[in-house]
């Protein structure tokens, strides 16, 4: 009984109701994942990019209109304006020399200027084989980084590609803080880096905010960086709270302990659609199709799937428009290929597969599957049109979609046996070692990213090559290979578009992969908050956090 009395007393002492947001100088953002490390280059994590891009800016980025713009540089170097030029490398190949001028007012949070030395350190760390940096190859493709003066950096790329001036993944590392730590022992640098040992060090930030406090597993606090050279942000303080359970996340939003749930890393689409029906007065809902391309890989080693008629029939038997309309209220657009409609390289002439059950059935009959036994089609040899259909377990929306697709295929006499596995099994073994029949998942690709690892015949994972490459279906098409090689070398925009159109047409006609839809990020923006601009790709809205303010 005494316990209850104490509880009542405690309740009485507390202020009832959600915290009133009076001065609105603090913004509390909710996300669903905690970045385990705050070093920008080690391990890539969406949550880390989201949070860090409030405190750090890369050299360039893609804006919400999908154009490449400068962030830490003065202007974008191109071949046309002389900022980039072709050079002949010592071994005779042609490389690209790209010169960036760092913004003259760019400074670290402790007042020291951002200089070329910081770029050189990033390059040193990135290309070191034992530094633990995840995407080291990208750094190794840069042959040399030179400081022409304190604020001018010259990069020499090992080859001329169309993305010669895209340095959106390139982040500066503060030389005056990290150089010594790195050189002391590169192999253990990732454990001694100030980003994780002293996250509150102001010298680690060069953006509008800097990290001041980290509560492991729970929250990251950022405050204004007085040395930021861009537009002054409104909010004095931003608290990022991590709540992995999306139901609890919604509860926190509704009770007022969170102001805004990050669209990129927050609610599921189902949740947002449900929330919109009840809370349209408090929030504006924006659904932005992202670069996440949800699709089904078909294993081309299977006899039935080798036949293009069967593959086309699989597509024609699906009513993807209805699925998107009914499950997602139309907010996730049906896909025709892996190229997003907002991408400049999208070709509207790409063949689309309308829902056409009679056509699907005709194709199957033509392919020899003309008899139906127990509502599953068979061919003369008695082979049934029955496939294992797998995706990552525990993902509600995917499981829902699977069940819809399963029932749609059943009408055409195709049996899809649902076999889901936890993500690590799915990606780590089944997909990687090509032990699947139909696999549904999503890729996340950058604008204009050339599909070498996914569609080129060299990129088929085999035991011999250690299961490297992401061409899981096993696509071997000479036309496609040629197009991919050409894409990497062609710089003329007009000719590139033509090659891209060809790539998309082959992709659609062959139907090696069944395109489903593009996932959308739901943004539930409180009506009092202005300035949030969803981008739809992996360079998140926080790259413009200094423009967020109350109306």
């Amino acid at each position: 009984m005494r316990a209850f009395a104490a509880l009542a007393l405690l309740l009485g002492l507390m202020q009832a109701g959600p915290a009133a947001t009076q001065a609105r100088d603090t913004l509390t953002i909710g996300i669903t994942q905690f970045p385990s490390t705050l070093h920008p280059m080690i391990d890539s994590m969406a949550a880390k990019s989201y949070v860090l891009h409030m405190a750090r800016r890369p050299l360039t980025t893609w804006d919400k209109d999908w154009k490449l713009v400068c962030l830490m540089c003065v202007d974008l170097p191109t071949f046309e304006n002389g900022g980039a030029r072709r050079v002949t490398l010592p071994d005779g190949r042609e490389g690209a020399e790209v010169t960036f001028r760092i913004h003259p007012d760019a400074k670290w949070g402790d007042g020291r200027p951002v200089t070329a030395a910081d770029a050189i350190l990033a390059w040193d760390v990135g290309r070191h084989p034992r530094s633990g940096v995840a995407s080291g190859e990208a750094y190794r493709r840069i042959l040399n980084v030179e400081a022409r003066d304190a604020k001018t950096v010259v990069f020499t790329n090992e080859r001329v590609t169309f993305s010669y001036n895209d340095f959106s993944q390139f982040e500066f590392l503060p030389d005056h803080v990290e150089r010594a730590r790195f050189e002391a022992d590169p192999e253990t640098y990732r454990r001694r880096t100030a980003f994780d040992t002293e996250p509150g060090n102001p010298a680690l930030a060069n953006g509008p905010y800097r990290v001041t406090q980290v509560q492991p597993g729970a929250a990251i606090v950022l405050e204004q960086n007085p040395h930021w050279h861009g537009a002054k942000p409104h909010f004095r303080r931003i608290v990022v709270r991590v709540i992995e359970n999306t139901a609890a996340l919604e509860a926190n939003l509704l009770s007022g302990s969170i102001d805004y749930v990050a669209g990129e890393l927050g609610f599921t689409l189902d949740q947002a659609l449900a929330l919109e029906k009840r809370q349209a007065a408090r929030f504006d809902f924006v659904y932005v199709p992202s670069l996440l391309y949800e699709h089904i890989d078909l294993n081309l080693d299977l006899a039935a799937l080798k036949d293009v008629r069967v593959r086309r029939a699989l597509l024609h038997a699906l009513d993807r428009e209805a699925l998107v309309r009914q499950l997602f209220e139309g907010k996730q657009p049906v896909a025709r290929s892996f190229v997003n409609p907002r991408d400049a390289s999208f070709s509207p002439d790409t063949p689309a597969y309308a829902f056409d059950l009679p056509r699907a059935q005709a194709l199957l009959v033509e392919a020899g599957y003309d008899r139906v036994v127990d509502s599953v089609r068979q061919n003369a040899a008695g082979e049934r049109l029955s496939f294992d259909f797998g995706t990552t377990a525990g993902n509600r929306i995917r499981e829902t979609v699977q069940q819809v697709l399963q029932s749609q295929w059943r009408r055409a006499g195709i049996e899809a046996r649902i076999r889901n596995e936890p993500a690590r099994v799915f990606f780590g073994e089944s997909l990687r070692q090509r032990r699947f029949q139909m696999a549904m998942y999503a890729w996340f690709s950058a604008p204009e990213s050339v599909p070498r690892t996914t569609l080129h015949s060299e990129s088929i994972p085999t035991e011999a090559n250690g299961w490297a490459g992401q061409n899981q279906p096993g696509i071997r098409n000479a036309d496609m290979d040629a197009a991919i090689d050409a894409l990497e070398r062609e710089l003329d925009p007009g000719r590139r578009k033509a090659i891209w159109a060809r790539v998309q047409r082959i992709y659609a006609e062959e139907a090696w992969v069944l395109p489903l839809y593009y996932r959308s990020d739901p943004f539930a923006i409180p009506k009092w908050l202005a300035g949030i601009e969803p981008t739809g790709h992996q360079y998140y809205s926080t790259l413009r956090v200094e423009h967020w303010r109350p109306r």
Partner: protein
Amino acid sequence: MNLRLALALAILGPVALAALLAPQIADLVGHDPAAVDLMQRYAPPSAAHPLGTDELGRDVLMRLVFGARVSLAVGLAAALAAAAIGTAIGLVSGYFGGRTDAVLMRVTDAVLSLPVLPVLIVLAAVDPAKLGLPAGDGGGLARIAAIVAAFGWPTVARLVRAATLALRARDFVRAAGALGAGPLRIMAVHILPNCTAPILVATALAVGGTILFESVLSFLGLGIQPPVPSWGNMLTGAQETIWQAPWLALWPGLAILATVASINLVADALQERADPRLTRR
């Protein structure tokens, strides 16, 4: 028969019946639990769908009924497996005593001191193919049952061992030994039948526990895989839309609550009958 027991059986009866007759019930009512109906998503309770529909338009009541089938099957299978293993070990340990007993009891202690849920997660995430076992089919029921049983047997083993120790000293057992009966015969014919009471109680208690474990595993996405319905995995998706369709979260949870509580009540009643010391004269 007192009120509590009556209530428990009143709950368990229909649940068990529903589980056994699920397909027949589906035919009778005319709802296929796997029928996806996208026009009827999240429908509130109505005449056609007494408990409403879920995110795919499937009838919730039907899924509860089929979920009962799955959850009870897994729970029972796991409990029986645990009982079988535990009985065997308890018998051997209690009868032979000495080093065998010491070793077996240490193993029992070892299993008991592992933190259950984390190890369950590891076991559920392990790829059976690497061990040469066939991959799970139809939602992985057998695998889940096996994993959950692996944690249930120590309690049974302890109980059976205690009973065996007590029985071993009894005259009729010694007589059987003197007449030349081998250990296996003595254990099977003389000791085991007299242990039925504790075994029954332990099994009954285990069923409740295994149902709860299965629901947690399924909730975490590591247990029974959809579209096979189980009460646990019905709760997983219901979380996100808990305000739009709260009944989706309410009913599976209540089903688990009612069933497990009833099973425990029955187990308790069995224990009272087996051990009348506790009832007031």
